[in-house]
Structures are given as C-alpha cells and as structure tokens.
C-alpha cells in the first residue's frame, strides 16, 4: 500500500474520520455558542439596542468564544460544502474550481468577521 504517487490508495480507514469528527465537534461548539448568545439577549433587563448588542461582544470571554465560532464555522462549512461538490459535481476541473472558490469564499468571510470582532 502506498500513500503517494499515481498508485496511491485514496480510500481506506481514517481518511474521512477526522473531517467527520471535526464537523461534529464544530457543530457542538456552534450550538453552544447559539445558546450562550441567545441567553444574553433574552435574560437581561437592558432594552434591545446597540448598547446591549455591542456590550455582549465586547467582553473578552465572548470575543474568545466568537473567534472559536468563526474558525469552527469555516471548517464546518468547508467539510459540508466539499461533500456537496464531491457528491454532485463529477468533472474534475469544475470540482477543483469549486473547491478553490469555497476556500477563498470561506477564508475571506472568516477574515472579515474577525476584523469586525477585533476592532470592537
């Protein structure tokens, strides 16, 4: 069995397990983030407005969590969207182009979101 060159084995144990696990771990983190954020919006005496909203995200532990969310979302979406391309798009050239587009789209979006978080 070889893992390189033109005769490499491209399927087998553990090839998909890491991504499968990562997708579940990131999903769990995003679900928890949703509940934490929702709790802060709902269980407060402050009126819903800019002060409450910006106050939530300006706390250091919330920035920590939100940064984790952004990275998780990018990884989660990469695994999921790549699965869709792999299932439905057969021509290698088109699939490669879509993979590159997905990576650029996600890293660009992640950068923008982190920029918003950073200057807060």
């Amino acid at each position, binding site marked *: 069995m070889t893992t390189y060159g033109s005769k490499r084995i491209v399927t087998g144990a553990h090839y998909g397990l890491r991504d499968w696990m990562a997708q579940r771990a990131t999903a*769990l983190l995003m679900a928890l983030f949703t509940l934490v954020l929702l709790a802060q919006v709902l269980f407060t005496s402050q009126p819903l407005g*800019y002060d409450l909203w910006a106050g939530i995200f300006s706390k250091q532990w919330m920035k920590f969590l939100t940064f984790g969310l952004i990275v998780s979302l990018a990884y989660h979406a990469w695994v999921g969207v790549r699965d869709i391309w792999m299932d439905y798009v057969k021509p290698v050239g088109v699939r490669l182009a879509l993979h590159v587009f997905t990576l650029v789209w996600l890293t660009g*979006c992640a950068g923008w*979101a982190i920029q*918003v978080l950073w200057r*807060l």
Partner: protein
Amino acid sequence: MTDATQATKKNRPVYTNIHVTQIVGYRLPPAGIVSILHRISGLLMFFLLPFVIWMFDTSLTSEISYETFTAAFVSGIGFLPGWFIKLVALALIWGYLHHFIAGVRHLWMDATHSVSKQQGKSSAIVTLVLSIVLTIALGAKLFGLY
C-alpha cells in the same frame, strides 16, 4: 439458470444513480426530506455568509452603522427594498433552525445509537414540524404581525 432466478435478475436495478430529471419520481421518507433539506439549508447559509457578516459588521461597529442595520429592514438598502431584506433574513432563520435541529438530531443519533426505523421517522417529523413552526413564529415577528 431457472426461470425464477432469471426473473429476479431481470428486475434487479443495474444502474441506481438518480438523475436530476428522475428526482420527482422518487418518494422520499421524512428522514430523506430532512437529509436533503439539511444540505439545501447548509448551502443556502454558505452563499448568504457575506450578508450574515454584513449584518454582524453594521450591527456592531458603531451606533451610526447600527442605524444603517435597522434601517435596511425598513427602507431597504441600495436598490433592494426592506421587505426583500426581511425575506432573505427569513430564509436565513429557516435555514439556521432546520440545520440546527437536524444537526442536534444527528448528534443525538450518534451519541445514543438510536438508529431504528421508527425513531428515524419520528425524529425526522419532529425536526420538520419544529423548524417550520419556529420559522413561522419568528417570521410573523419579523414582519410585524404581532
């Protein structure tokens, strides 16, 4: 070869890849509907990601940009009217709710090994009903019905 084995061999589908044109001919069980909607909602949110981050950006950056954020849902932004922005937000709400609930269903199945046919069906129906009811409730709030 007997006639019986020949008959079964003839009826056996040789090529089972489903083509786009055949989709309507297939009757999906509830779990199948949840599964394909999980993909559709995921892809929808993937493409709307810049809009989500635009909302994140304008709602957080300053009090002035917060005004722009809230005004977008009333008087629109650029050539897009406010009701259209609300409609896109509603699509996001449905996408998030469906993806979230269907995802929790997956995690639940992974953790408890509940993979029986009946549980798959009932949890799929719960997913569909819950996501649609919550979407209608939040959508009514978004469009100012209550």
